[in-house]
């Protein structure tokens, strides 16, 4: 049980219990020392406080034994340990597999459109600014909380965030 010294040192000084490391074990060690994962994950995350994705990557998804709904709710609240996120699904017309995007990672429509243009490798136009919409261009639409499909960009960004449910990139000549 040589792993014990590692696992306990996160909360108790390893010099306090030398006896445990001498316990015999002739069997192969369990493959994953989750406690080390936990510790490493947390120390990595504290050195990069702004990178919310590293927090979620390092936390094991199967320990401690919590059901997903509770785990998510707790993680969201979790003492501001993680940045809040707002992931929405994004589909492009003609492509059955969608993507997911964190809207909170953007501050305005420009940033959103630029990211989506890169993600889907297309030009997304703003209907106000850009002229004549040809067949190969796309526009960005969203489904709001009432189930209606609207053009992105009409309401202030903050208001958009409170009402958007999912995004769709459609061909310009459809609008």
């Amino acid at each position, binding site marked *: 049980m040589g792993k014990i010294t590692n696992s306990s040192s996160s*909360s108790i000084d390893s010099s306090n219990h030398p006896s445990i490391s001498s316990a015999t074990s002739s069997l192969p060690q369990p493959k994953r020392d989750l*406690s080390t994962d936990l510790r490493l994950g947390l120390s990595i995350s504290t050195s990069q406080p702004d990178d919310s994705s590293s927090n979620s990557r390092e936390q094991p998804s199967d320990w401690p034994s919590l059901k*997903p709904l509770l785990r998510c709710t707790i993680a969201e609240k979790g003492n501001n340990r993680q940045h809040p996120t707002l992931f929405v699904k994004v589909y492009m017309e003609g492509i059955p597999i969608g993507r997911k995007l964190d809207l909170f990672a953007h501050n305005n429509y420009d940033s959103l459109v630029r990211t989506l243009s890169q993600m889907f490798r297309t030009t997304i136009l703003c209907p106000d600014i850009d002229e004549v919409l040809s067949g190969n261009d796309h526009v960005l639409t969203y489904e709001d909380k009432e189930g209606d499909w609207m053009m992105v960009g009409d309401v202030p960004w903050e208001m958009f965030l409170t009402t958007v449910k999912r995004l769709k990139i459609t061909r310009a000549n459809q609008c």
Partner: protein
Amino acid sequence: MAYSFPEEVLEHVFSFIHSDKDRNAVSLVCKSWYEIERWCRRRIFVGNCYAVSPRIVIRRFPEVRSVSLKGKPHFADFNLVPEGWGGYVYPWISAMAEAYPWLEELRLKRMVVTDEALELISRSFKNFSALVLSSCEGFTTDGLAAIAANCRNLKELDLRECDVDDRSGNWLSHFPESCTSLVSLSFSCLEGEVSFSALERLVSRCTNLRALRLNHSVPLDKLPNLLRRAPQLVDLGMGAYTAELRPELYSRLGNAFAGCKGLKSLSGFWDVVPSYLPATYSVCAGITFLNLSYATIQSPDLIKLIRQCRNLQRLWVLDYIEDSGLNALAASCKDLEELRVFPSDPFGQEANVSLTEQGLVSVSEGCPKLQSVLYFCRQMTNAALFTIARNRPNMTRFRLCIIEPRTPDYLTLQPLDAGFGAIVEHCKDLRRLSLSGLLTDLVFEYIGTHAQKLEMLSVAFAGESDLGLHHVLSGCKSLRKLEIRDCPFGDKALFVNASKLETMRSLWMSSCSVSFGACKLLGQKMPRLNVEVIDERAPPDLRPESEPIERLYVYRTIAGPRLDMPGFVWTMGDEKSATEFS
């Protein structure tokens, strides 16, 4: 030989026998009792959907009205079973659509349910009245819309902790205006919004509604209207319990709650604002179940609420309650039977709240009826476990989760073997046990020796050798489900106790030391077991036979190997699998 009673009389007598165990015993008396019993059995419970096939069930029990099915193993709740493993309900629905046109109730747990399955249910059973889905996935709100629209006599629609894809389309509005039969409507796990006007109208016209569990999208200011339309409610799951502080909302809430004189169960409490809690006080004296698992409020506010609930029997709460709150609970709630304390910060390295073993000891002292415990904490001592065991020999379910794996007794630095040993020794009716902390093979010796009524055991990061597993498998007479992760248990204990596995529902072992060779042998020798190797790396036959597999799931079955396995699951000992490897 002439029988004293005609069949009709026996059938009438059997109609008073409800428990499955008793009905199974009845059917073993003689052939004619078997025949009579099988024609009049109305409810069946299938604990493992792969233990038997729909065809076999239907052949034996032709007149069933209520079916319960469970799919994935319990550890699937914690992401230990890869996506796509199985547990599909559609084959069952399609078989029952033909065989059981009078089916009324369907209860599914940990199964993959599709919109097609829900649509088929809604069209196939004219008297369908109850659908309960617990921890299910694979369907969308479109499927719910079909149930709402087509099931004329629907009494119960309960979604518990399901993963549902929320499409807009307003499933709730699909309940026709003529639907007045609902008794229970529970959708707290849905993420999306529902139409309030449809909900209000539905609640208004369903005058028998007893249980209503909303999701967090229903804002607090809509709650008074709903409650006023359903003063007969017994079970309420609130939506978001937060709003800016407005006196008129507070008084509307207070009046609405006061009107619900029969409320026994309260849950929801998302985003709860403490100032609104006193609005519930008028009903608290009658509350027997309080679910505060989502209420991120501090101990003082929790204590004030709990002190109002003098008749509380079950409490689920976050560890914000702290030891001080548990002391108050022990002092106020003498009828408490079940306590669940969940961690508010499970990934933090250090305790964020002052919740220790003392809190649990307090409750075990103050609450004489306490029999079911689920407790997440960060420290424990053998002494505390001794005290709990001696205080509460009536304990039947004891699940302790010390968050850091392999944590020893923090005072003596010893393993917690003796403490758990005391639990199994004193609590002679213990049916369910989850272990945690630093544990050697000794704890399993205690369990094998004393836990004679134990039916389900969950083990993680414990033990030292195969002896541990052997103690449990050779000792626990009543064992039905054993789930193990990250323990140094391997082949020997499985071989020696192979026949024990036929007396159990299932065995799960992940990240242990079970070799592929042993699994093959077990599968070959035990035809009445499905020995499933679940391994997301390359096929196990491409590696040395002595190498440990990722996951093992063994269950008894009379249906033979299943045919719906994904690419990362192999059934051992099956001729078809054997030829795939060659």
